[in-house]
């Protein structure tokens, strides 16, 4: 201490190598930093690491930062290591998640002249992405493209998948990829030795390291192609398929067949034929309205939303999906159950009085639904949620029997209600076909109707609010744009503040005129 340094900055000494690790809490960024410290020290280097861990919770982002350099001959003159990365002055950025690698780029830590980026392409979604009423997922391709443009070298693949395969933790896969990237001048052995010295989950971590190392060398490019659906298997399927080929433009075959596949699975071939009949009509209006120039966007939109609406989620559908063998295989797989392992599954169901009425034959259901006495009498049955154990025979059989009501579905109250709604929607689309964009927008509004219980009612009422707006406003300017705005407002928040505000805004000129 307290030595008046007389030395003068002379020839430039080797600058320290700097490594920034951007990780989410719980991803093992601290473990990774400790391993890198061990590797550097075993190579006879001086190393410093630090971090800004916040409170104990497991969400937020943490940046771990390391600097290292070969041990100088004169130990009295140790380098001054910085405690935080400076933009433009980082050699290696390790991104344990795609958006965090992107954030490192935004902070200026990734530069063309020197930064090697080792990042995983998998996503851990942020709360705003998760809690959106619709699709709030951030655009990953923009981040990948920016990283590719910014980094000197980019080693980038889905490390989460790699660690699932190797049964390890993502920190070990990142460590392997870092070793393979060649950004640090240490031998593979010293990395593996660091894992062994850590003495925690050594076998799994070494497997993860090896996977990361090899995948980084191959560095498979990321692709996102959806495979085409399989050919029809049944006679009915082949018949409908032929009809699709004869009626619809080629580029729409995929989506129309998806709709048919869904409705045959939902009900039967006859129901799918109703779908095709309705859709053929739409395609005629579409052609009449000059749809060719627009790639038949209206038919495409209706193909999707009509199939979704016609396969509305009733109790029969839920019971059917819940009891399928394929579903049992899927949950065993998702739970990671070992072959032959016993798994009990209980469902969280909350049937309501309304659902009982919906499932009954229409005349009875309608009378029951309008009877206050019945509602009061049966209310206790529906007050609380129920647990149905589908892996025990009683619970399974109950749902199985409900699923078997499928053949009588066309007689149920819900069926009649939904078909009437669908017809009204299609009629509205036809009436609007002169304004092509508006027709497409109306078709898209079906997206608001989804879910069960309160969620379904909320969606339905917002859909209705937009349709009522159209009743009042049938030929105003920019109608399509306004419907689009209303639709995104309907998805903006749960309480409907935004939708109310936009509706009021659109209503204002009327009031002024009145």
């Amino acid at each position, binding site marked *: 201490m307290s030595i008046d340094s007389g*030395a003068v*900055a002379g020839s430039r000494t080797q600058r320290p190598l700097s490594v920034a690790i951007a990780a989410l809490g719980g991803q093992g960024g601290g473990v990774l930093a400790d391993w890198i410290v061990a590797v550097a020290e075993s190579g006879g280097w001086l190393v410093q690491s630090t971090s800004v861990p916040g409170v*104990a919770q497991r969400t937020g982002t943490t940046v771990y930062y390391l600097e290292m350099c070969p041990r100088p001959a004169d130990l009295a003159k140790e380098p001054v290591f910085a405690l935080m990365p400076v933009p433009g002055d980082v050699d290696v950025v390790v991104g344990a998640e795609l958006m965090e690698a992107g954030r490192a780029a935004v902070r200026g830590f990734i530069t063309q002249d020197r930064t090697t980026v080792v990042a995983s392409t998998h996503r851990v979604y942020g*709360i705003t992405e998760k809690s959106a*009423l619709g699709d709030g997922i951030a655009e990953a391709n923009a981040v990948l493209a920016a990283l590719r443009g910014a980094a000197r070298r980019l080693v980038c693949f889905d490390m989460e998948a790699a660690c699932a395969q190797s049964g390890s933790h993502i920190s070990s896969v990142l460590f392997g990829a870092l070793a393979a990237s060649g950004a640090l001048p240490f031998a593979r052995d010293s990395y593996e030795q660091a894992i062994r010295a850590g003495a925690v989950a050594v076998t799994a971590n070494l497997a993860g390291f090896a996977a990361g190392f090899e995948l980084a060398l191959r560095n498979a490019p990321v692709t996102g192609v959806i495979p085409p659906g399989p050919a029809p298997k049944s006679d009915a399927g082949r018949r409908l398929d032929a009809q699709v080929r004869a009626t619809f433009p080629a580029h729409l075959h995929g989506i129309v067949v998806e709709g048919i596949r869904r409705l045959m699975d939902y009900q039967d071939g006859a129901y799918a034929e109703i779908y095709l009949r309705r859709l053929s009509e739409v395609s005629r209006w579409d052609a009449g309205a000059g749809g060719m120039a627009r790639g038949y966007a209206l038919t495409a939109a209706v193909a999707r939303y009509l199939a979704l609406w016609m396969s509305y989620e009733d109790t029969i559908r839920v019971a059917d999906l819940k009891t399928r*063998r394929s579903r049992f295989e899927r949950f065993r797989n998702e739970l990671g159950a070992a072959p032959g392992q016993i798994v009990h599954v209980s469902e969280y169901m909350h049937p309501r009085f309304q659902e009982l009425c919906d499932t009954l034959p229409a005349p009875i259901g309608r009378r029951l639904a309008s009877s206050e006495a019945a509602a009061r009498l049966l209310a206790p049955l529906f007050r609380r949620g129920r647990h149905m154990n589908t892996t025990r025979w009683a619970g*399974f059989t109950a749902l199985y029997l409900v699923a078997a009501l499928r053949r009588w579905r066309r007689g149920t109250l819900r069926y009649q209600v939904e078909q009437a709604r669908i017809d009204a929607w299609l009629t509205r689309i036809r009436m609007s076909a002169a304004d092509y964009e508006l027709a497409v927008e109306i078709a898209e509004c079906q997206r608001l109707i989804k879910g*069960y219980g309160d969620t379904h009612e909320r969606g339905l009422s917002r859909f209705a609010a937009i349709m009522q707006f159209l009743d009042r406003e049938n030929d105003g300017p920019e109608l399509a744009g306004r419907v689009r705005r209303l639709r995104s407002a309907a998805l903006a928040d749960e309480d409907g503040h935004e939708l109310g505000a936009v509706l009021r805004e659109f209503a204002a000129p009327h009031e002024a005129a009145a």
Partner: protein
Amino acid sequence: MAERSFSQEVLKLRIGEGGEFRGEGILAVTKALLQSGVGYVGGYQGAPISHLMDVLSDAQDVLRELGVHFEASASEAAAAAMLAASVNYPIRGAVTWKSTVGTNVASDALANVASGGVTGGALIIMGEDYGEGSSILQERSHAFAMKSQIWLLDPRPNLESIVHMVERGFELSEASKTPVMLELRIRACHVYGRFRAKDNRAPGFTLQDALDAPVRDVTRIVLPPASFEHEQEKIHKRWPAALAFIREHRLNEFMGRPGGKIGIIVQGGLYNTLMRALELNGVADSLGNTDLPLYVLNVTYPLLDEEIVRFCTGKTAVLIVEEGQPEFIEQNLNMILRKADLPTKLVGKELLPRAGEYTGQVLDRGIEAFLRQYAQEMGDSPAPGDSRGPRSSRGAMREPSKEIRALQGILPIRPVGFCTGCPERPIFTAMKLLQRELGSLHISCDIGCHLFSILPPFNLGNTTMGYGLGAAGAAAFNSPRGKRAIAVMGDGGFWHNGLTSGVGGSVFNQTDNVLVIVDNGYAAATGGQDILSSRADNRTKSTKHPIAAAVQGVGVKWLRLIDRTYDLKRMLDTLREAMTTAEKGPKVIVASSECMLNRQRRERPQQNRAIAGGARVVRARFGVDADTCTGDHSCIRLSGCPSLTIRPNPDALRQDPVAYVDNSCVGCGLCGEVAHAAVLCPSFYRAQLVFNPTLWDKVLAAIRGAIIGFLQRAADARRAHHEY
């Protein structure tokens, strides 16, 4: 027991003379305390010094061998008051807390100990929670040093310097009979580095020695007339003694090339960042050699006038690098220069930001601006942008590309949130559901994990006034009729002061508000330290003192205990009752469920051992059926569990991502409860995986499998008739 165990690291505390210590800054401080012959240590946890408390707690064997007393203080005020042991006796003591919030709490006791002065060295280790990663209001600890005349150390952030300043800090305290603060920024607390160790020293004068022969000196007690005398003593005796010690032991450092026309004065803690900025500007190398003269303040209060005058004499301009505001040092320096009649221009906050952390980037730009303005004064030394520096190669990065700037709008924010399976989440889910019935509510929050309720997806809470002050923050809303306010308080805050400031105050003033005490068994947000009401056994502390007994003890009549917060219906019913009951007076709900982070840490290894040992174990977790989920995400808005996430919809026709429970699920059951209570959707299922099944399990499973399999095959066959 704390979240992180230091049981391996504390072995490093035994390293003797000449050995190389390698480890975290916090651990190095502990080692330095032992090397200094400290007699007692205490403090209150909070980032970034939580680990210091954890290290001390895990180091109790070493402490006991040396005869050092460790106190997990009830609050920072309690910790500061403990320094009273150094007033009359030559015993060294150290306390620690998170600053400035902890210093706020401690300042009553701090001011008293500073007034009467100390005989044994008294050191306060302050974890300065400022800048990136900070969870508190942004203020400086410097003001506390100035107002009470406590000396403030701000060592260069390498372990050698930090350890040295801990040791010198005690000596300074004794030489000037004044407590000393040592300020450590977040990164310095967590920095991994090394230093040359010394042997630990047992205190020469022990606490028992003091009790055996107590010393009473009425002139050390803060009461007139002594209190007037203390002020005189501070100015006329202790201050000059401190300056003499700092000068004599050269605690502040002159570095770089002496002479020259411009120079830099820097807080010790910012030295490393400054050096990197100088290097990037081409006027230093990575070994810390620089052409610019530097004056490094390892002691930032008080300042040594004559050293500053010596440094500034002959210079045209001097840059002061001082983080935070107000710019106390800059003001002081200007006064010193003015008094010495020096024409040197002092450059500070006009080139560097007035507020905010001095990061590498901030100092890089500040130094560049300073050099540009005053470079001609440097004579033959290199100008910025010289090829020797890395600056020239960095010109391009100054402005990131268009693609990268566009990412700013894409990257999702990641606010902190409740952990997977957190038992506090259902409390706020219940409040959110209650708001659907009663309309929006005024909620007075506290400090702790539960404060995350203010962020998405819960968006609940209006104010937070400080640790344990949730109930006090609602005191004014004691309205005689209509809607009531809800106050939230954690168990940590409850024992810190909430029992008196909140519960006692509510009883005395007969408030009509509702108080929810979140009892998760630990001071969870600071890393899971035990507190009075913890249910765990603790080797050295007394636990298992129920909050309910304390609440009733101060006179609460309306008290409801919830022993499983995941029971959402009960939680909601209880909250509704509290909000609507005709009964007057405070309504207190103690909502108890163990912190899931700590519970998993305890139970997971046990469960794994049991499975490996062949015992029958049932592990629960939740799942979502992708084909019934329609992608509305209500469940996420009402739960916010990290394990409840989304993934792209596997259905070709549906576009909205579906909910998905990932493998980190611990099976707490809240998502299912939410689906029930809010009548959401039938997609949730609870799965129980049976490990090492009994024969009976196997027989039953075989029978069930046969029946269900038969029915499923029949359904598959029927479905084949109408498949595509």
